[in-house]
């Protein structure tokens, strides 16, 4: 069975959840082999094996962290040349997409970015599913030239432990980053305060607030509800444009695309650009004063009312039920 390379996403020695999702997806196409750029492969090996990784290519260099995208693309291109894998899967994160693009150029291959699903087609070749135009159109696409490079959206595939998981062989890779790949140097970094809330893109539940929250102060009730539900916080563009909540939490056409199990939209009218970022959510609950708000057209459950009275009561109810 042909190998399928998976570029591991990891930070501070911790394997990011999307890596297990990629291994799960890779197992549908062939034999998953994780490519680990940077230190920490040995410590992660067992967990990767549990999801079906047969091998871990470990390039221990610390340089992968010092330059943007290019060294990882170079490492993958080198492994593609040496191992002739059936496909390469990366996470459709900020850097993952860029690594995918550069790898595609290096290997003369087709790249499928932001896939929400991956499966083997009738001929065994990968077929990627995309949710285009904010989920309005479902597209299945294939790669017709080179080694398929697929960037898979975090949270789109459920990570599943392998039924017959064995041990993953650790294969040290002697790879040196070229001078050309060291052109854009990372000279500093700053981690955003994340707090205890789950990551917006990966959260099972997202609670979003819109113009109806009224102010930065009024938006706080959204955070309170999110915390009661163990959810991530999102915001509509009206809110981030007004400066009531930081821009990186914007859900919509020009912000994040989310597809959680539950999406609660409070004080959000549901303009087409907002729906493009959340309409593939499994369950949608809407709270809005305006009975004509388009968000009600796509909500599984809607309450016409003032979020400032409905949400506090909802939080009380949640606390009561949780005992």
């Amino acid at each position, binding site marked *: 069975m042909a190998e399928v390379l998976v570029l591991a996403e990891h930070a501070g020695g911790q394997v990011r959840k999307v890596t297990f999702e990629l291994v799960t997806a890779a197992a549908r196409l062939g034999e998953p082999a994780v490519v680990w750029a940077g230190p920490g492969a040995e410590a992660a090996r067992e967990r990767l094996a549990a999801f079906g990784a047969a091998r871990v290519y470990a390039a221990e260099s610390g340089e992968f962290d010092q330059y943007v995208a290019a060294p990882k693309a170079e490492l993958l291109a080198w492994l593609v040349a040496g191992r002739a894998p059936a496909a390469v899967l990366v996470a459709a994160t900020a850097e993952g997409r860029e690594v995918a693009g550069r790898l595609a150029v290096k290997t003369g291959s087709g790249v499928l970015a932001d896939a929400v699903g991956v499966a083997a087609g009738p001929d065994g070749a990968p077929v990627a599913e995309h949710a285009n135009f904010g989920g309005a159109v479902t597209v299945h696409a294939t790669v017709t030239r080179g080694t398929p490079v697929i960037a898979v959206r975090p949270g789109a595939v459920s990570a599943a432990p392998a039924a017959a998981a064995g041990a993953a062989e650790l294969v040290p890779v002697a790879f040196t980053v070229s001078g050309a790949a060291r052109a854009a140097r990372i000279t500093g970094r700053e981690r955003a305060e994340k707090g205890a809330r789950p990551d917006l893109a990966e959260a099972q539940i997202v609670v979003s607030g819109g113009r109806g929250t009224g102010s930065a102060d009024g938006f706080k009730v959204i955070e309170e509800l999110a915390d009661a539900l163990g959810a991530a916080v999102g915001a509509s563009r009206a809110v981030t444009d007004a400066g009531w909540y930081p821009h990186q939490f914007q859900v919509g056409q020009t912000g994040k695309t989310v597809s959680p199990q539950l999406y609660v939209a409070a004080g959000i009218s549901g303009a087409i650009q907002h729906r493009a970022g959340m309409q593939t959510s499994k369950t949608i609950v809407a709270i809005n004063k305006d009975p004509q708000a388009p968000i*009600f057209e796509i909500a599984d459950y809607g309450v016409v009312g003032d979020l400032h009275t409905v949400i506090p009561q909802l939080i009380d109810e949640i606390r009561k039920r949780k005992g």
Partner: protein
Amino acid sequence: MNIVVCVKQVPDTASERRLRQDGTVDRAGPEGVVNELDEYAIEEGLRIAEAHGGEVTVLSMGPGRAAEAVRRALSMGADRGVHLCDEALAGSDALGTSYALAQVLGRIGFDLVICGAESTDARTGVVPAMLAERLSVPQLTLAGKVDIEGGSVTVRRVTDEGYQVVSAALPAVVSVVEKINEPRYPSFKGIMAARKKPVQTLSAAEAGIDPGQVGLAGAATAVADFAVRPPRQAGVVVADEGDGGAKVAAFLAGRKFI
């Protein structure tokens, strides 16, 4: 400084966007607008030229209508336009698009290429990095802030986790994220002036593009099938009669969310 801003004309996100029978984006039907993130790229190019001297060239690849996007950038203040326009380019995927743009960029020359981080139609976000790879210049992508000093460029890169400071020597490719600046509106004077600014229209052959590597036929990816997602069915909508929160809680409990 020679600044080239890449812009794409895309279907308006407020319209009903469609794919054509062959799986390519319908660029004839809905109203075309400048890709929103590219407006930030144009503004950033203009600001850098204003602060450091130099000229801003706007480059667009697309059908005849994409000339509107070039004109818009010129009315904002860009100095000249290059419109890569050829039937043979229609349906190009990211590999083909990056190849075609890189061919033009190699010919017209640049100190700094600025792109929007992604387009609202395809949203692949891969083209700026692919341009850097093809042009063998540093990639300073997802910039929330750009500083030029002497022959080097430093950006504040917005990542999923926070920020990075990234530096490189020019020439380079930069991509910008939303909110890096406040794009200016074209003034009446700007719109009038834009009419007199030079726009060069290039065919694929004139740009030295191998037709086998572009267009739908030259694409390295293919759409197998597509389907419009069935519209969501509206569910239950109730009025808050002092019990709205309790009603939502009951619904969430019924679905095992609480």
